[in-house]
């Protein structure tokens, strides 16, 4: 089996991974980015909306353009960066300190890395309801890929399940693609995403039904409709039911961090509800309990892409420093200042509480 070697392996070429790669490569590290998708950019390339934050997080710039900015930065250091797309890291073997990866569906190879940055992002959650496996029930990220990356019309009329930022943003994006939104249902008594994202779709006439959920997907072989119902304060269905005519049911019911590699590396993991699943304990350099493993972005807890990019910078900075490369300490402080700002608001409260549970001052035995 073929084997490649690198200084810093970055697993995942999305918001966090690209930022980490750019930072480490700028410091002079030899970086290999492995991305399972056919192109780099992760979730960024699907975002048509302008980002929040400040100038430092490219506020006011549309997500897909931010991906281009990061790719340009990587291109400036291309002598230090090798990119493998359509390649999936399939495992880490702790006894040999060896990664395995698969190019396409066929060719396996080994990767030996001095340092690894796991920026594997997240995967979509599913909620249980009859026929939730029927074609036409799609993850929100998948709908974005279909319409915003490949320009394919996802359907005619969509029921959106979930009014967090993803549900709200994807609803708006569906309207931009000419698709009608039948309704957005949200189990809680208030929207979970930014209020302004909700206002944007409300004023276009989209109903947001709070304390409502999906009861069942309807259809013979593919989705032709859905039954929705009211839910009480304990998320139990009330007798209020309604039939919705739709050919797509889009699930935006949350994400969960993708952490298999961190588990395989023996990193200290902890279930943190505020970060939406099992995440690795980390220090302020985004290093895990495994001294050669860093992680950043949604893999370390579900948060906005703007925060993922800063975390990636921190991880890349620290991994490069650990190789003995010269890095600027003031950059590290600056990155933390940005993160603190991003997390300071009411929406950041949950994140702050979650991170408080997994942040370590020092590691035992190191």
């Amino acid at each position, binding site marked *: 089996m073929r084997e490649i070697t690198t200084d810093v392996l970055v697993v995942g070429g999305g918001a966090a991974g690209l930022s980490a790669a750019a930072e480490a490569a700028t410091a002079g590290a030899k970086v290999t980015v492995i991305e399972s998708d056919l192109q780099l950019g992760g979730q960024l390339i699907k975002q048509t909306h302008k980002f929040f934050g400040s100038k430092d997080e490219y506020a006011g710039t549309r997500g897909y353009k931010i991906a281009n900015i990061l790719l340009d930065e990587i291109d400036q250091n291309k002598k230090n960066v090798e990119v493998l797309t359509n390649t999936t890291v399939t495992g880490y073997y702790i006894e040999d300190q060896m990664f395995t990866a698969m190019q396409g569906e066929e060719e396996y190879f080994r990767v030996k890395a001095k340092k690894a940055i796991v920026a594997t992002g997240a995967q979509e959650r599913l909620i249980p309801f009859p026929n939730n*496996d029927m074609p036409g029930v799609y993850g929100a990220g998948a709908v974005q890929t279909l319409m915003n990356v490949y320009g394919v019309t996802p359907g005619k009329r969509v029921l959106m399940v979930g009014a967090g930022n993803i549900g709200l943003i994807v609803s708006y994006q569906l309207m931009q693609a000419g698709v009608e939104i039948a309704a957005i249902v949200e189990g809680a008594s208030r929207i979970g995403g930014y209020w302004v994202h909700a206002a944007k779709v409300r004023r276009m006439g989209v109903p947001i039904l709070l304390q409502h959920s999906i009861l069942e997907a309807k259809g013979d072989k593919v989705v032709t409709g859905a039954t929705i119902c009211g839910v009480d304060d304990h998320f139990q269905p009330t007798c209020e039911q309604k039939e919705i005519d739709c050919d797509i049911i889009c699930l935006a019911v949350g994400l969960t961090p993708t952490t298999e590699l961190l588990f395989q590396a023996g990193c200290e993991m902890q279930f943190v509800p505020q970060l939406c699943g099992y995440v690795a304990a980390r220090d302020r350099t985004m290093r895990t309990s495994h001294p050669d493993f860093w992680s950043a972005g949604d893999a370390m807890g579900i948060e906005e892409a703007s925060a993922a990019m800063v975390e990636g910078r921190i991880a890349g900075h620290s991994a490069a420093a650990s190789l003995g490369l010269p890095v600027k300490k003031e950059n590290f402080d600056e990155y933390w200042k940005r993160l603190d700002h991003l997390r300071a608001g009411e929406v950041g409260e949950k994140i702050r509480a979650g991170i408080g549970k997994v942040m370590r001052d020092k590691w035992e035995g190191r």
Partner: protein
Amino acid sequence: MDLIKDHPVLDFKHNAKVEFTFDGSKMEGFEGEPIAMALHANGVRIYRETPEMKRPRGFFCAIGKCSSCFMVVDGTPNVRTCITPLKAGMKVETQHGKGKVPLASE
């Protein structure tokens, strides 16, 4: 193909159009774009049938993680069609059950 013609923000650049087959029918798609997207653009919603319950499955996560879009491509089963690039002349088939891996001798 059911493509977005005009978009207020995005400009879509597609690769060259190529022909492939789905369960024997000729279809068109864009070279290098995922097989699943080409099928969706051609109106195909059912990509496989589950082994036990024979339930239809289709597109779901689009990041190569959920196994919903496994199909038989050029004789190889369990191909993640959402992240496998389309090539001219590909033979794409609905996967029934677990699929059978072709042996070298076959």
